[in-house]
């Protein structure tokens, strides 16, 4: 299964672990397709203790991956959640066994549209089955089975990672001791679907996309993917954050250029975001992962009543939102809290004051760390997890 890898996948797999699953029993996807065998790439930090009670699953958001706290194999940048995971941090590998799994459909080593369809020997590209958040979580659960990890002390994630946390708690309540969904929602809103659609259309409108078969044609829809990233990136920030960071400041010039170069710093910044993104992300994967988020509707999957997703849940929940996040605004977290209350589940909810928009969950937000640290301390005490392993 390791032939035909992209350079990025090769670099990723050289720096993390992977498992080939679904050989005997394929993964039944929500769309009805049986997928197997499939590869799951994952990274771990720390060691599993003797009674296997210290496993923490970090679920990554759309454009991040399994490299939570080590240098990225493609970009060389530091891990995307090093503020949270690492020695002396809230999630310290000295105490917890931390796992992060590259999600199904992604492009950092786990099977996705880049892989070959075993039945035809041809690259899947757009013939790859559409996967859902629940499918991603099933693949993660299958990996834990493979690793012999019965349950998780905590499942934590922001944005799409938060959706996976909710799905974990709903699908495998007995395997989730505590759950921390951050800056997310129980369904993707019309506005969020709309923004994703703009991104997908930008990719598909790129003549180099070739109906998804760009690798066969040795082209790359880099412009389309860059525009998709630029649009999405705006939704991750807040009006205040953009204003504070850039205002109307000009880029390397003293006066307007009366043309269409990047006159403004904000333009230059977005162009940079777009052009660097294409080096580490696959355009088809972007289509698939955004689709998975769009399809997420936890209440819809439980008879239209969100509380039904959490009936008799033994899990301890801690939800967090940020005041300036307009992509996953606080009221969407509150909706989840109401449902958890209706199910009489154990829930904490904190709204963090921040002007940094949706991205705040990836940044240095002391209030978020304080909350998490307190919540995990409380959960560890109930679980009987020792201070140090």
């Amino acid at each position, binding site marked *: 299964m390791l032939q035909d890898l992209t350079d990025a996948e090769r670099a990723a797999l050289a720096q993390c672990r992977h498992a080939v699953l679904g050989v005997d029993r394929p993964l039944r996807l929500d769309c009805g397709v049986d997928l197997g065998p499939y590869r799951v790439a994952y990274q771990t930090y720390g060691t599993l203790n003797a009674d296997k009670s210290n496993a923490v699953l970090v679920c990554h958001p759309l454009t991040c991956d399994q490299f939570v706290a080590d240098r990225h194999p493609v970009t060389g940048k530091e891990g995307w959640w090093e503020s949270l995971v690492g020695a002396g941090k809230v999630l310290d590998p000295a105490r917890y066994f931390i796992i992060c799994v590259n999600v199904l459909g992604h492009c950092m080593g786990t099977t996705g549209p880049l892989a070959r369809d075993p039945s035809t020997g041809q690259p899947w590209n757009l013939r790859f089955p559409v996967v859902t958040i629940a499918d991603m979580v099933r693949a993660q659960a299958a990996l834990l089975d493979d690793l012999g990890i019965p349950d998780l002390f905590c499942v934590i994630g922001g944005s799409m990672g938060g959706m996976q946390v909710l799905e974990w708690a709903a699908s495998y309540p007995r395997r989730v001791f505590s759950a921390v969904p951050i800056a997310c929602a129980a369904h993707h809103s019309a506005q969020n679907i709309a923004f994703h659609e703009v991104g997908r259309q930008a990719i598909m409108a790129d003549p180099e996309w070739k109906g998804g078969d760009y690798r066969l044609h040795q082209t790359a829809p880099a412009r389309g993917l860059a525009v998709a990233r630029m649009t999405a990136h705006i939704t991750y920030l807040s009006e205040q954050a953009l204003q504070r960071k850039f205002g109307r400041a000009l880029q390397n010039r003293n006066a307007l250029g009366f043309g269409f170069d990047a006159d403004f710093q904000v333009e230059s910044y977005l162009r940079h975001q777009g052009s660097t993104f294409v080096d580490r992300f696959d355009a088809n994967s972007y289509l698939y992962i955004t689709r998975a988020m769009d399809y997420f509707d936890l209440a819809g999957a439980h008879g239209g009543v969100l509380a039904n997703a959490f009936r008799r849940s033994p899990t*301890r929940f*801690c939800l967090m939102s940020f005041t300036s996040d307009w992509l996953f605004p606080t009221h969407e977290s509150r909706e989840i809290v109401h449902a958890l*209350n209706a199910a009489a589940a154990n*829930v*904490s*909810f*904190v*709204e*963090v004051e921040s002007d940094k928009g949706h991205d705040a969950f990836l940044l240095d937000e002391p209030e978020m760390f304080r909350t998490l640290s*307190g919540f995990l301390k409380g959960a560890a005490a109930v679980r009987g997890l020792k201070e140090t392993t």
Partner: protein
Amino acid sequence: MKSIRVDLQLIADMVAPDTRALDVGCGDGALLAYLVDFKRVDARGMELSQAGVNACVASGLSVIQGDADTDLRDYPDDAFDYVILGQTLQATREPREVLRQMLRVGKRAIVSFPNFAHWQVRLRLVFGGRMPQTTSLPYKWYDTPNIHLCSIDDFRALCRDMGVRIERAIVLNSKSRPIHMPPLLANVFGEQAVFMLKRD
């Protein structure tokens, strides 16, 4: 053993160990922490102020931001053994409905409130001619959150109206010491009261 406010201690003493409790208006979580630490209670909190919520969660307590007037509705019947409302009833918009919800969500309700018929209150209004300010009612008329003040007798009357059984009633004097007097006098010398209620 850490000490908590006298009225909170009285409430804590009413809660049986190893039960489930919801503290509505839990403030900084002092009562919750006591119930968790010393009575192994599965204790949850609801607090209006976000700063209070964040402080509680950061200390490991299960607390959400919420409003007694609107958010008790979310919970199913009999979700808790006790629903506690300390010094907050008088600040709710619909105290009667809040009590009804508390006794729906909880098998028992524990309520504490300041007594507006306390002798100091009476004197200040009758002879001072001004809205009373006392230790348990420290606000000015224009900045008080207390919009539905009542006396101990008023509260008893409401319980009668609602068909709610009073299982225990403790009246505290201005030194926060329990006093034992017939109801008529308790309504004069009690500065605050703690009631444990049950659906009849």
